[in-house]
């Protein structure tokens, strides 16, 4: 009788722990995944003047056939691009020298995104194509 009660409590504890671990796992996966990125949202732009840029991170890279993360998350050494990647850093960590440097940061985003769209002849090139209302 008592034994049965104990095992019932154990059951409850185990299932509680299992549910907890399950949610932890989802959270962890979410933290390391990029599925949830739907817009580019660089915190360095304090006052935005345009609608947010639509960018379904994984979807975009699947469809564009980009496997190499360092195409965008790049690392430079002495002005030469290396094969390393800077995943986890925002573009503004390297491309924003001061609060007045917003045009510099806009410039590198546009050169990277629009530059590839132009050379690949695919993907939006007009302001409204990326900054969708």
């Amino acid at each position: 009788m008592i034994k049965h009660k104990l095992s019932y409590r154990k059951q409850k504890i185990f299932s509680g722990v299992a549910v907890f671990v399950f949610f932890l796992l989802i959270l962890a996966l979410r933290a390391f995944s990029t599925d949830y990125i739907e817009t580019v949202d660089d915190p360095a732009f304090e006052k935005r003047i345009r609608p947010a840029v639509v960018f379904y991170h994984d979807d975009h890279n699947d469809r564009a056939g980009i496997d190499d993360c360092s195409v965008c998350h790049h690392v430079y050494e002495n002005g030469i691009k290396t094969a390393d990647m800077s995943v986890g850093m925002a573009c503004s960590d390297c491309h924003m020298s001061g609060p007045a440097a917003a045009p510099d940061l806009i410039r590198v985003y546009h050169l990277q995104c629009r530059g590839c769209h132009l050379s690949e002849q695919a993907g939006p090139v007009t302001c409204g194509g990326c900054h969708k209302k």
Partner: protein
Amino acid sequence: MMHELYGFLRGPMLWVALLVFFGGSGYRVAAMWRLARKKDAVIFNYSSGYYALRSIFHWLLPFGSRNMRNHPVMTVVAFVFHICLFLVPLFLSAHIILIKESWNVSWPWLPDHAADAMTWMVVAGCGFFAARRIIQPDVRYLTSTSDYLILAAIAVPFVSGTWAFHQWPAFPAATLVHMASAEILLMIIPFTRLSHMLFFPFTRGYMGSEFGAVRKARDW
């Protein structure tokens, strides 16, 4: 198709447009200068920097001339129109961002809603000038088709630009129309009546010198 056209309009065609605009402007001014030397050399004897600038200044001032005081509505519309016509393309955020991308130089820009309001004032100005040509008999008498075409050449880049900005239907096409029509506008400036932009300082300086230095009178 979209990408080829966009690349062409932002690349080679932009260079052609700038070359024709600056080269054509330089050529027109030099040609006029040479003609004046040959046909009317006497003006260089009494041309006066002081009287020239004095006249230019008065004609740049709202209601600075008698002609303007006699036509108050036309004066207000013409001043607002010309100010917006110059400020919007030079201080529009989108233009400065594109220039920053290409040549890595930038300067402060107008808030987009201000630029948008000023754009509509230019378009309204074009409408006003067209209506004046239709309604006022003395002006209609002096009007030819090319006057309407020139107004349209100004209105099209402004309407298509704001079309792209507001992302109205088919805005990617509107962006291409905007770039092409703006480049056409730049190229026709030196060779049409729009060249008054280049000649204004010379005609006023000429009149100012003659009235100031020779007739001892004002020309405003």
